[in-house]
């Protein structure tokens, strides 16, 4: 562990933020108390689709001690705050039910009270009369438009959008002329990120009349601008603070009705308001993820060269289109669906529909639908391998984009920056002993035992994104950094991103330290305060390192250029005679004549000669391209033929995320992402019954893996730096979550393939496997 000035990027430095967390001194939003603070509780609908006939607040106001005020959708509508624009930009969402409710647990009324308990009692006492309406519980029913869910919209249909990319005619021609073809419907089930800290906020107006808004937000600056636009409060009168956040995973990107109600309550009552959602509220009403029904078709030659890919998706977006995608990308970056393979032609299309379910479709540890796309292609390639009777690794190797083809223009419009897919795959196969595993599998199959080996060789697209293509509500998706170096050589860096556990307080300091030859321990990192941090789009979609990480390196280089002038003065030579070498300034060709950045920093305030005093810089970084991390994952599973139980015996992840800033942090991210991928493959699902009732409303029904069932993770790496990122880094947080579900499913299907099983939708539960095995045995009889 280095704490010395100098080499800092690539060092497994212990995290600077940890001492406060391990001592219980974290500062999460629920830890904040303001004198006179009220508590907000929300009344929610028990019906998935119903007309609101009447809301009676009399009992709650009169009979429940401590209740101060209650607001309903009508009150908000009168104030012009009835609806909230979604980040998507195409739709709006009711803050509190107006006229009707569209999903179970939808917000209907807001109760403000003196205590947590009084607010809950008050919410119980609000009487709402509903008249149930017919429920649309799936997108295929929605498609028929027999029940129009959103009469508030101009377009009188449940169809939200059709999006497509690629050459459809050429793709269809290539598919029909391909000697070999596969087609399969894959459903990526609805799931929920479920960070352990639920969403919440504290809102109040200070003595200057400024809105002080502390909130679990992954994107505090975007919140500030959105609040200014929606409420009409001037943006300088809004101060958003994202304190420590207990996990986000995309769940804390959207603006939720509870936030709006808290602000309205604070304004109306003139006191601070705290709103902390319960776990049930979190799982039933905040951003869900996925719910893509994907028809995947791949064509190939007899010898296994892919000829075309077509994916047609039916998407369930719930009651409002709150997918939080960049505005030009209603289906996110689904166009990455050609994956790591050189498809000559491809076409992808997505049709999205409203249903009576919670809104969302957010990027759960994912760059906007990249997880769905990655799953589609990686499952598809395995199904093709099975169809061709080819080894799954061999098929992939044959179709990979080759190292010499980068930068590679994909059939669906991306320019992949770099990679060496053959090397990454070979590293994985060597490390896990693929050949021996195949031999073992052959022996086991001969004995009737079910062992499976699953591969996933995914390519990701992260770092949204270049201003030409990416914006949210019109705001371009750049990111930013501001660095100040103090006279003693310590400093502070502020960025437009917001860590929720990713370790920015450490890794951002490492970048500054590396670029400036300073001690990372004396570089403080601050994020999440819109009064002090430069404007940025926040942390999600593995964008922090590709965008803010780049901005930090570039700002540091600006400081270095300023410092060079002062160094020249100190070294008594011309500026052109000074070079930056071994983390110091040196007179060219005279290694004995040097000054350190620390010395220059002191001089910047005490002896700057003709130079402008001070040593600081700001940089707004507009990325020239996305970055394209890739990986090769191998899962080995054993399936119990009698019980259907799947045991993940081994899992190896080889990731290539370009330059690594902190290998310990990167490995931690991979462990966490793999665990979420495992959870999605085997456990996590938000199910609705045919009547629109949510069946997974708490952690006893929405299953998350514990230490007992989580497999042991093996990791390895290849490093192919991004050619366009200042330090060559690509981002890694979501890769393991994007890449691993297909590896798990491929392994289970590989185990079951001798029985003729071709596909099982996630989550692969024991009963689904058991049923597939029984069905296969029945077929044999």
């Amino acid at each position, binding site marked *: 562990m280095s704490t010395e000035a100098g080499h800092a990027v690539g060092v497994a430095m212990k995290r600077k933020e940890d001492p406060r967390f391990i001592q219980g001194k974290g500062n999460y939003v629920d*830890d904040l108390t303001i004198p006179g603070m009220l508590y907000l509780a929300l009344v929610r609908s028990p019906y998935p689709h119903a007309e609101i006939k009447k809301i009676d607040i009399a009992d709650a106001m009169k009979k429940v001690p401590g209740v101060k005020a209650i607001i309903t959708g009508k009150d908000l509508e009168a104030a012009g705050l009835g609806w909230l624009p979604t980040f998507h930009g195409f739709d709006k969402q009711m803050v509190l039910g107006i006229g009707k409710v569209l999903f179970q647990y939808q917000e209907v009324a807001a109760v403000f009270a003196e205590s947590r308990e009084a607010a809950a009692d008050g919410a119980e006492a609000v009487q709402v009369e509903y008249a149930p309406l017919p429920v649309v519980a799936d997108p295929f029913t929605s498609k028929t438009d027999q029940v129009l869910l959103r009469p508030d919209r101009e377009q009188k249909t449940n169809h939200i959008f059709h999006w497509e990319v690629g050459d459809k005619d050429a793709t269809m021609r290539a598919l029909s002329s391909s000697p070999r073809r596969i087609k399969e419907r894959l459903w990526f089930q609805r799931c929920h990120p479920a960070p352990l800290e639920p969403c919440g906020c504290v809102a109040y107006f200070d003595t200057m009349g400024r809105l002080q808004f502390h909130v679990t937000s992954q994107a505090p600056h975007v919140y500030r601008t959105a609040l200014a636009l929606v409420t009409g409060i001037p943006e300088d009168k809004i101060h958003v603070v994202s304190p420590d956040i207990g996990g986000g995973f995309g769940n804390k990107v959207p603006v939720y009705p509870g936030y709006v109600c808290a602000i309205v309550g604070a304004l109306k009552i003139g006191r601070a308001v705290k709103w902390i959602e319960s776990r049930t509220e979190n799982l039933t009403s905040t951003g869900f993820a996925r719910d893509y029904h994907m028809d995947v078709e791949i064509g190939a030659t007899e010898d296994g060269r892919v000829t075309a890919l077509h994916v047609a998706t039916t998407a369930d977006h719930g009651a409002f289109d709150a997918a939080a995608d960049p505005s030009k990308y209603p289906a996110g970056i689904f166009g990455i669906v050609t994956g790591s393979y050189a498809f000559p032609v491809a076409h992808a299309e997505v049709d999205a529909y409203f249903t009576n379910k919670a809104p969302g479709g957010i990027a759960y540890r994912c760059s906007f639908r990249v997880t769905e796309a990655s799953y589609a292609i990686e499952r598809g390639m395995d199904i093709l391998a099975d169809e061709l009777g080819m080894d799954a690794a061999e098929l992939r190797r044959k179709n990979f984009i080759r190292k010499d083809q980068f930068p590679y223009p994909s059939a669906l419009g991306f320019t992949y920056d770099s990679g060496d897919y053959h090397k990454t795959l070979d590293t994985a196969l060597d490390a896990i002993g693929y050949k021996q595993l195949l031999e073992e599998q052959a022996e086991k199959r001969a004995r009737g035992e079910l062992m499976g080996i699953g591969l996933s060789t995914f390519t990701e697209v992260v770092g949204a994104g270049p201003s030409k293509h990416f914006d949210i509500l019109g705001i371009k998706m750049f990111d930013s950094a501001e660095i100040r170096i103090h006279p003693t050589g310590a400093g502070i860096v502020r960025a437009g991103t917001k860590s929720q556990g990713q370790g920015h307080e450490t890794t951002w300091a490492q970048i500054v330290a590396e670029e400036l030859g300073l001690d990372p321990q004396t570089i403080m990192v601050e994020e999440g305060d819109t009064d002090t941090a430069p404007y940025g789009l926040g942390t999600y979609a593995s964008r922090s390192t590709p965008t803010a990480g780049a901005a930090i390196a570039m700002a540091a280089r600006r400081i270095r250029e300023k410092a060079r002038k002062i160094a020249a003065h100190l070294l008594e030579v011309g500026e052109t005679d000074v070079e930056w070498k071994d983390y110091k300034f040196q007179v060219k060709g005279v290694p004995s004549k040097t000054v350190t950045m620390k010395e220059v920093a002191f001089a910047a305030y005490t002896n700057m000669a003709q130079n402008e005093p001070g040593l600081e810089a700001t940089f707004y970084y507009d990325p020239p391209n996305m970055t394209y991390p890739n990986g090769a994952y191998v899962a080995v599973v054993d399936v119990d033929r009698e019980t259907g139980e799947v045991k993940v015996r081994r899992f190896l992840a080889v990731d290539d995320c370009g330059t690594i800033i902190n290998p310990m942090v990167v490995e931690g991210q991979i462990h966490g992402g793999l665990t979420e991928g495992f959870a999605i493959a085997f456990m996590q699902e938000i199910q609705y019954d045919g009547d629109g009732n949510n069946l997974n409303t708490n952690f006893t029904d929405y299953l998350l893996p514990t230490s007992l069932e989580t497999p042991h993770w093996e990791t390895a790496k290849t490093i192919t730096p991004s050619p366009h990122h200042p330090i060559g880094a690509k981002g890694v947080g979501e890769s393991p979550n994007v890449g691993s579900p297909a590896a798990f499913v491929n392994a289970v299907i590989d185990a079951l393939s001798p029985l003729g099983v071709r596909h099982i939708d996630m989550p692969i539960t024991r009963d689904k496997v058991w049923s597939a095995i029984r069905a296969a045995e029945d077929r044999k009889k």
Partner: protein
Amino acid sequence: MKVKVTVNGVAYERDVKPRTLLAYFLREACGLTGTHVGCDTSNCGCCVVVMDGGRAVKSCTMFAVQADGHQIMTVEGLANGATLHPLQQGFWDQHGLQCGYCTPGMMLTAYALLKHNPNPSEADIREGLAGNLCRCTGYQNIVKAVQQAAEKMREPVSARS
């Protein structure tokens, strides 16, 4: 109702409603916000504290009145002055935390586990922590953190650095 609960060695006498959960008593009546609440169903374990020196309890599943007259240790009571507890050191050294939200409950569950089993195997640790959820780490480094702490705690006190 009047209760007297000794938390981290300090006696807190407070007037509480019968329905006040121990978790909120600690957070709001004692101002000890290191104890977190992450679910409504006693699944997540973010709220685990140690009662009477060796029993891990989920403080969202106990009323404050049930803790009357008992000793409670929260995360704020783990360190000895400026010296971190071996569990805290282990979590830091082994990167056993990311967002930090589950960490207090994890460490206190591990504390009780090590009281009863000072030399646990990996399987013992995984079983011992199965009542605590973590969404960030995948548990592997948490296991390593507990192993490091266990090893340190088995050393004679004089040998500890």
